[in-house]
C-alpha cells in the first residue's frame, strides 16, 4: 500500500500568496500585530517588527552567479524569529499568551507576477503538560517521488506524518489562534497511566544516555 494518494492530496492545494516577498512579510507581520493587539500573542509590536523580515540573497560576487540568478529569478526568505535549531528559549522568538513560542522560515522565489513557495518550516514549542513538546510543519524542497514534501513532526524530529500544504498566513492563524486547550475544557485532560509511564521511562533512558535532559 503506497501513500501516493495521500501525498498527492497534501501537496495539491492551490495557495493564494501575495505577489512579492515584501507583501508576504507585511501580511504576516500585520497578522502578528493584530494577534498582539488581541492578546493572543505577548510579543510587542516593536518586537514583531524586529523579528519578522525579508532576507534577500546577498549581491552576486561572480558573473556566473549573476547570470544564473537572472535566469532563475530572485529567491529570498521571509523569517520570523532567529534560527533556533537547538530550541533554546533564549534565542529570539515569537511568544503566545500561554507561553507557547514559535519561529518560522519561508523560502520563496519572486517571479514577475507571482510568488512561488519553495519551502517552509514553522515550529511551535509548548510549555510542559500540553501534550507534546513541539509541532513542526515542514514543506520541503521538491525531491524524490516517495517523499512527503508537506509533513508534520509531532514532537519528534525523526517521525513525521502527512500534512496539508498550508499558506504562511494559514499557519500563522493556526499558531496564534489554534493549537490551544479547547475552549470547552477548563483544564487539560489528565494523562493516562500509559503516558505517565512513557514519560518516566523516556526520562530514565535519556538520563542513561547522558542526554542533556538529565541535567534539566
Amino acid at each position: 500500500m503506497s501513500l501516493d494518494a495521500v501525498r498527492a492530496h497534501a501537496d495539491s492545494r492551490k495557495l493564494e500568496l501575495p505577489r512579492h516577498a515584501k507583501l508576504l512579510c507585511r501580511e504576516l507581520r500585520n497578522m502578528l500585530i493584530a494577534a498582539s493587539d488581541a492578546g493572543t500573542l505577548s510579543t510587542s509590536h516593536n518586537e514583531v517588527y524586529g523579528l519578522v523580515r525579508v532576507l534577500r540573497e546577498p549581491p552576486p560576487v561572480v558573473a556566473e552567479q549573476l547570470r544564473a540568478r537572472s535566469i532563475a529569478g530572485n529567491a529570498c526568505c521571509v523569517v520570523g524569529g532567529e534560527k533556533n535549531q537547538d530550541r533554546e528559549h533564549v534565542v529570539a522568538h515569537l511568544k503566545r499568551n500561554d507561553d507557547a513560542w514559535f519561529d518560522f522560515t519561508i523560502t520563496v522565489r519572486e517571479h514577475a507576477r507571482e510568488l512561488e513557495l519553495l519551502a517552509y518550516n514553522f515550529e511551535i514549542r509548548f510549555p510542559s503538560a500540553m501534550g507534546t513538546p513541539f509541532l513542526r510543519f515542514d514543506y520541503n524542497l521538491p525531491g524524490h517521488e516517495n517523499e512527503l514534501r508537506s509533513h508534520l513532526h509531532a514532537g519528534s524530529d525523526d517521525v513525521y506524518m502527512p500534512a496539508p500544504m498550508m499558506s504562511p498566513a494559514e499557519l500563522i492563524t493556526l499558531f496564534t489562534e489554534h493549537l490551544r486547550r479547547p475552549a470547552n475544557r477548563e483544564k487539560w485532560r489528565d494523562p493516562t497511566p500509559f503516558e505517565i509511564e512513557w514519560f518516566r521511562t523516556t526520562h530514565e533512558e535519556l538520563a542513561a544516555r547522558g542526554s542533556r535532559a538529565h541535567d534539566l
Partner: protein
Amino acid sequence: MTEAIGVGELEAGPFALRMNALRGTATYAAYLAAADDVDLALTEIEEELRGFDPGAQIMRISPPDTKELVATLAAESHEILLIDAKSFSTDDWAVLDRRRSAIAHRGVTVFVTTRPSFDDLMRTAPNLASWLGGQVFMFPSHGETGVAAHREQRLAALRAWASRSDQEIVEAAHSGTLPPDPEYAEWLVLLGHGELLDTRTP
C-alpha cells in the same frame, strides 16, 4: 538657530503603525530620507498604512511649493496626508509657518523630506517645528550592514546544526544530493545561490 540633530531611525512599517494609531488626532510628523529615497519612503508608508486598513482615507501629494499645499488642504481633508516636501525651500517653510492655521486640521499630516530641507524647517519655521514635537524620524538607509550580520548569524546556526560547510552545501546542490529539508533552501539563499534551488531536483 535650531539644528535637527539626533533624529532616530525608524523603518517605514513601525512609523506607519505609529501614524495609524494617531488617526483621528491632529498630528504633525516629519519623516526624513535621502533625496533618492523620498519616493520609496512615501510608497512604503502608504502601503503599510493601507495594510492596516485598506479603507483608510490617505492622500499623497507632491506640491511644488507651500502655496499650492495650502490651497490643496483648504479644498479637501483626509485622515492621513502624506506630503512630498523634498523640494520645500527655506522660503516655503517660512510661508507655511506663517500660514500654519490654514493647514491645521484633525488628521495626521506627514512631511516626507530630506535632511537639509528639514534643517531649513527647523531654522525658519519654529511654530511648525513645535507642532512636530517628537514625531520626527529617519527612514533607514538600506545598506547591507545589519542584514549581512543577521545573514551570517543564521548561516552559523545552520552550519552548527548540520555540521557541514557552505562549500559542501553548494557542491551537494550542484550534484543533486542536497537533502530536501527547508533548512537547506534557506542555506542556499543566504549564500546567494538561490539559482541552485531549481537544480537539486533529480
